[in-house]
């Protein structure tokens, strides 16, 4: 299946038949109690196009074996396809070398790898780690564990009422004890797109490496790790139309080589005796044990799919959906959008006067509408806005304007019930 190849001839961002793209996703034909599924929980996990499903089937039916070991046919094919997926990811983020791309189980695993591999080796007692209020718990908790272990300190960049990072406050946090910055590229709870390039440059002026949590950014905007000059970049496949259980960590070669391994086991070694083990070269040093081979190959297929459409086109289309949804929700009395940053990805968090998000989610579900309700694993953001939770609609390129209309109708139903 080759999506929208004809339209690639044009430079236009709006020359795609999005209905045709939508038809690539079999799950979107589902009915929930006879109502068509309206899937607006893409920030939690996106759906998978037929081409990726087919790729997984082809791998399992004709290419599967363990990799990097045997000399037989299937093992060679599987190794080659796994490596091909790595190269696809390398090109997707424009990394200099394919060995800078490490397959992990996902963003959380990637961040934990950096914490163990870099943090535990280089962060010492009294050192400071800068994080932001917008971080997902997965980019908070590992660093708290490290800080506790080492006697290091976490400093937090505040946000303003729109949900934007306060850059002047960020810059003031730096001192000679600052040793690491962990920064979310796009807020999963609010959609805020952070000025990461500027923030990375500032950290580098102080000789401080920066990890970017790109879980919400990679699906919605082009990522160029060389332009960003970030030291680490992490994201998961399942938010990019790929399978669960796989993600990547990008890291600069010199840093990855200086780091200690995170997990010990097979494949990550050059030689083992009971006296001494010599670690393998990167990326293998960080890929102990049999990796999620099928998922990684599926990840590659998902990237192929998205690249064929064009991430810029996806971003432009999603932006029109977000603008439309924002206008619609702003017109409903009693509905308040949380997160109104000038630069936003297609995430719409909202609260309704007097109605708990869980009741909203349950009643919207009645109309087949899937939204996320809760704190979105970002409790510091909720505390900042003094709310326990929000309802969150998050859009993908296969969503339609008519689905936004359905959301609006659903919200009005909720309000009517609780009148």
């Amino acid at each position: 299946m080759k999506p929208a190849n004809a339209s690639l001839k044009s430079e236009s961002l709006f020359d795609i038949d999005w209905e045709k793209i939508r038809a690539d996703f079999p799950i979107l034909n589902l009915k929930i109690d006879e109502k068509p599924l309206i899937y607006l929980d893409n920030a939690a996990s996106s759906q998978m196009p037929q081409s990726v499903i087919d790729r997984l089937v082809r791998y399992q039916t004709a290419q599967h074996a363990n990799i990097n070991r045997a000399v037989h046919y299937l093992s060679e094919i599987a190794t080659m396809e796994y490596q091909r997926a790595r190269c696809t990811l390398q090109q997707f983020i424009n990394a200099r070398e394919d060995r800078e791309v490490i397959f992990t189980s996902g963003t959380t695993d990637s961040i934990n790898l950096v914490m163990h591999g870099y943090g535990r080796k280089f962060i010492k007692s009294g050192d400071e780690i800068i994080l932001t209020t917008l971080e997902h718990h997965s980019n908070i908790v590992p660093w708290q564990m490290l800080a506790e272990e080492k006697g290091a300190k976490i400093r937090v960049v505040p946000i303003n009422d729109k949900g934007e990072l306060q850059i002047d406050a960020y810059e003031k946090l730096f001192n000679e004890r600052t040793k690491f910055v962990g920064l979310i590229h796009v807020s999963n709870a609010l959609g805020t797109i952070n000025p990461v390039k500027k923030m990375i440059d500032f950290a580098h002026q102080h000789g401080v490496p920066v990890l970017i949590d790109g879980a919400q950014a990679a699906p919605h905007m082009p990522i160029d790790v060389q332009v960003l000059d970030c030291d680490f970049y992490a994201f998961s496949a399942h938010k990019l139309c790929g399978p669960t259980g796989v993600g990547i960590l990008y890291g600069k070669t010199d840093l990855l080589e200086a780091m200690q391994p995170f997990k010990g086991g097979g494949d990550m070694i050059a030689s083992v005796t009971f006296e001494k083990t010599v670690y393998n070269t990167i990326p293998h040093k960080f890929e102990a044990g049999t990796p999620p081979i099928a998922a990684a190959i599926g990840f590659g297929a998902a990237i192929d799919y998205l690249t064929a459409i064009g991430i810029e086109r996806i971003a432009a289309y999603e932006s029109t959906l977000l603008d439309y949804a924002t206008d619609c929700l702003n017109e409903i009395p009693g509905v308040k959008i949380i997160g109104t940053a000038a630069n936003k990805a297609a995430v719409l968090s909202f609260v309704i006067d007097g109605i708990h998000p869980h009741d909203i989610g349950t009643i919207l579900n009645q109309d087949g509408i899937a939204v996320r309700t809760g704190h979105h694993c970002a409790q510091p953001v909720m505390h900042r806005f003094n709310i326990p939770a929000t309802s969150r609609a998050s859009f993908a390129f296969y969503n339609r304007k008519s689905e936004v209309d359905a959301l609006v109708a659903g919200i009005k139903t909720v309000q009517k019930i609780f009148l």
Partner: protein
Amino acid sequence: MMYTNSLYQEVILDHNRKPRNYGKLDHASHQAVGHNPLCGDHLDITLQIENDQINNIAFQGESCAICKASASMMTTAVKGKSRLDAETLIHEFRELATGKLDINQSHHLGRLTVFSGIRDLPTRVKCAVLPWHTLHAALNAIASASTEANDDPVQTVISGNS
């Protein structure tokens, strides 16, 4: 889905709008705080118990409509009852919410059976059960209850079914 329609019935919406016995008793003999860490909902329950009889009960907190209505209806159900009767209701309500109670058999829940639809919404069972959990904690002099505790019957049932 049909069960959602039946869940948000007028009686539940009414107790959510106008919760009964809402507040905090000044001279409580028993109290406990209930907490659902999954959504941040919490409520506290205060009781005045004399000679094993619940003379007064109040609750307050922040929660969804299901939790608030459940708490409100619970307070009206147990007020004036003996401790033992309250424990029976707690047991029966938990069984109802987790789908283990046959409402056609004899029970003491009365209008509380309006919550029977919750059994089809595993993620919302905790919302309905939290007040009852907290009452149980208060009656047994446990300072706080959590829907995530190891001995949480709801948790046990959900993991058992998945």
